[in-house]
C-alpha cells in the first residue's frame, strides 16, 4: 500500500512539471522517465532473477525500429507503439528460449551478442530499415511546446505503468519465484518452481517496457540510426542505475535513474570529451565501495535491518 501511495504522489508531482514552462527541464524529465523505465525493466531480470542481461539495448532498438517502420507505412502512433512492445516480447521469448538456460558470464555474453546481431541485421538491410543511413520518422503537426508536453506525458505514463507492474510483480508469486531463482536456482527447481517459465516471464517483462520506450524515443527524436538505438551503453546504464539505487528493490531503480541523469548532466556540461571516462569512474567507485546500492547504505546507516527476502550482493 505504501508503495502505491509513493507512486501516486510522485507521479502527481511530476505531472505538474510542465507548469514551469521550461522546455529544457521538460526534456530532462522525459529522459529521466525513460531511464526509470529502462532501469526498472532491467530490474525484472537482473535484479530479481539475478541474470546479468545486456539485452536492454536490443529491446529498445527493436522497439524503435518496429514503430518507425510501421509509422512510415502510415500506421497510427499508438498502434505502432503497442506493436513495438509486442515485438520486444516476441524477441525476448525467442532469444530467452535459446539463452536463458545459460548462467553467469555465458548469459551476459549471449545477451550482449544479441544486441550486436540485431544492429548488424539492421545495418545490412537498408531496403527496410535505411541501414547505416538511419530512418526518418514522419514529423508530427504540433507546436514545439505541445510536442515536448506530449512526449513527456507519454514517457511518464509508461514509467508509471512500468512501476505499477513492478509493484505487482514484487508482491506476486512471480516475484517470489524470481528471487528464489536468484538465491539458488537448482533448489528453486526442486521445490517445484517452473524456473524456465519464471525466467522467461521475467525476461518478457524486462522486454516489453524497454521496447515501448524505444518506440516513444524514436517518435520523439524523429530520426534513428543503428549506433544510436542499439548503443551498448543503453544496456549498461540501466544496470548502473539499478546498482546505484539498490538491486531488486522497487524504488531503487528510480533513485538510481535520477542520480545517473544528474551526474550525466554535470559531466556533459563540464567535461564533454571525458564523459565516458567519468561514467567509468562512477561505475568503479560504485562497485568497490557500495555494491548494494544507496538504499542499502542508508538502511545500514539508520540501523534498519534489510527487509526479509530482499536480495543482497555479497562483495
Amino acid at each position: 500500500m505504501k508503495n502505491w501511495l509513493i507512486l501516486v504522489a510522485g507521479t502527481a508531482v511530476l505531472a505538474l512539471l510542465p507548469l514551469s514552462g521550461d522546455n529544457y527541464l521538460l526534456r530532462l524529465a522525459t529522459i529521466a522517465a525513460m531511464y526509470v523505465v529502462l532501469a526498472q525493466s532491467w530490474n525484472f531480470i537482473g535484479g530479481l532473477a539475478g541474470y546479468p542481461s545486456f539485452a536492454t539495448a536490443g529491446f529498445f532498438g527493436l522497439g524503435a525500429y518496429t514503430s518507425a517502420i510501421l509509422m512510415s507505412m502510415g500506421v497510427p502512433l499508438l498502434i505502432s507503439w503497442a506493436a513495438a512492445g509486442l515485438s520486444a516480447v516476441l524477441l525476448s521469448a525467442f532469444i530467452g528460449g535459446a539463452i536463458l538456460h545459460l548462467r553467469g558470464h555465458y548469459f551476459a555474453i549471449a545477451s550482449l551478442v544479441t544486441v550486436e546481431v540485431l544492429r548488424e541485421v539492421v545495418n545490412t538491410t537498408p531496403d527496410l530499415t535505411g541501414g547505416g543511413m538511419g530512418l526518418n520518422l514522419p514529423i508530427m503537426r504540433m507546436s514545439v511546446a505541445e510536442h515536448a508536453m506530449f512526449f513527456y506525458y507519454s514517457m511518464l505514463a509508461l514509467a508509471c505503468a512500468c512501476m505499477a507492474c513492478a509493484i505487482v510483480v514484487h508482491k506476486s508469486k512471480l516475484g517470489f519465484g524470481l528471487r528464489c531463482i536468484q538465491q539458488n536456482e537448482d533448489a528453486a527447481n526442486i521445490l517445484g518452481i517452473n524456473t524456465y517459465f519464471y525466467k522467461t516471464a521475467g525476461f518478457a517483462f524486462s522486454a516489453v517496457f524497454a521496447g515501448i520506450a524505444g518506440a516513444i524515443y524514436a517518435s520523439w527524436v524523429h530520426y534513428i540510426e543503428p549506433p544510436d538505438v542499439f548503443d551498448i551503453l543503453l544496456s549498461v546504464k540501466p544496470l548502473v542505475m539499478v546498482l546505484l539505487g539498490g538491486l531488486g528493490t522497487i524504488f531503487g531503480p528510480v533513485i538510481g535513474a535520477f542520480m545517473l541523469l544528474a551526474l550525466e548532466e554535470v559531466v556533459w556540461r563540464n567535461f564533454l570529451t571525458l564523459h565516458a571516462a567519468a561514467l567509468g569512474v562512477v561505475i568503479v567507485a560504485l562497485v568497490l565501495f557500495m555494491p548494494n546500492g544507496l538504499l542499502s547504505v542508508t538502511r545500514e546507516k539508520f540501523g534498519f535491518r534489510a527487509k526479509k527476502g530482499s536480495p543482497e550482493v555479497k562483495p
Partner: protein
Amino acid sequence: MIYFQVLANGLILGGLYACVAVGFSLVWGVLNVINILHGTFVVLGAYIAYFGYVHLGIHPFLSIFIAGGLLYGIGYVIQAGLVNRVVAAPVLITLTLTFGLDLILNNSMIVAFSADYRQVNLANPLPALMLGPVFLPGDRVAAMILAFLLTALLWRVLRDSRIGRAIVAVRMDREAASLMGVDVGRINAVTFGIGALMAGAAGALLSIIYPISPITAPIYLGKAFIVCVIGGLGSVPGAMIGGLALGIVESFGAYWFGPEHALTLSFLLLLVLLFVRPGGILGKKGYE
C-alpha cells in the same frame, strides 16, 4: 582453387585471433572474471608498436616485448589494486567493474591519441610467398608464426614453470591452492598481467595488418569471446583451435556472403554454439 587462398587467409587470421583470445581465456578460466578491458589492451599494444615504429624505428615485431612488458605491469597493478577486492563477488560485479575500467582507459586513449585510424606502413616489408596458386603476404605470415610461438610459449609456461603450475592450481581449486602455500592474490595479479601481456603482444602483431583506433577495441573483445566459446575455457589448445576455426569461418563467410556480413556470421555462430554446446568444443576443467 580460390578456396585454398581463402583457407590460407583464414588460417593467418585465425592464428592471430588465437593469440588475441588466449589471454582473455586464461583470465576468464582462472579468475572467473570477464575482462572487458581486453580489447582496449590489444589496441594499446598496437599503439605502442605504432609509436615505437614511427618515432624510434623499432620494428613492430620487436615491440612485442615492450608492449607485452608494459601491459603486464598495467594488468598486474589493476588486478592487485582493484579487481582483487571483488574477485569472489558475483559475475555482475566483476563484469561491471572491468566495464567501468574499460570506459576510463578507452576514453583516455581517445583523448590522448584521437579516434583517427592510424596504420603502420613498413618501409621494408618481407617479400610475399607464392605457394602454387596461393599468395601469402610475408609480413602477415611472419605475424601469424610469431602469434603461434607466443601462444605455444604460454602453454609451456603453464605446464612446466613453477608459477604456471601455481596458476593451474588456483584455477582448479582456490582454497586448496591457498592451503598448499600459494599466494592466491599474487597469482591472480600475475594471471591478469599475463592476460594483458598476451593482449599487448597480439596488438603489436596486429598493428602491421589492421588500422589502429580505440574504437576498434570492442571488435577484438568480441572475437576473444567467440574464440573462447568455440574452443572452451579449458585450454590453450582450445583457444588455438577456436581461433583457427573462427578465422576460417570468417574468411569463407566473407567470400560467400560478402565481407560486410562476416561479423554477423561469427556472432550468429557464437549464439548457435552457446545454444548447443556452452562448454565449447574442447571444454574441460583445469587450465593447461
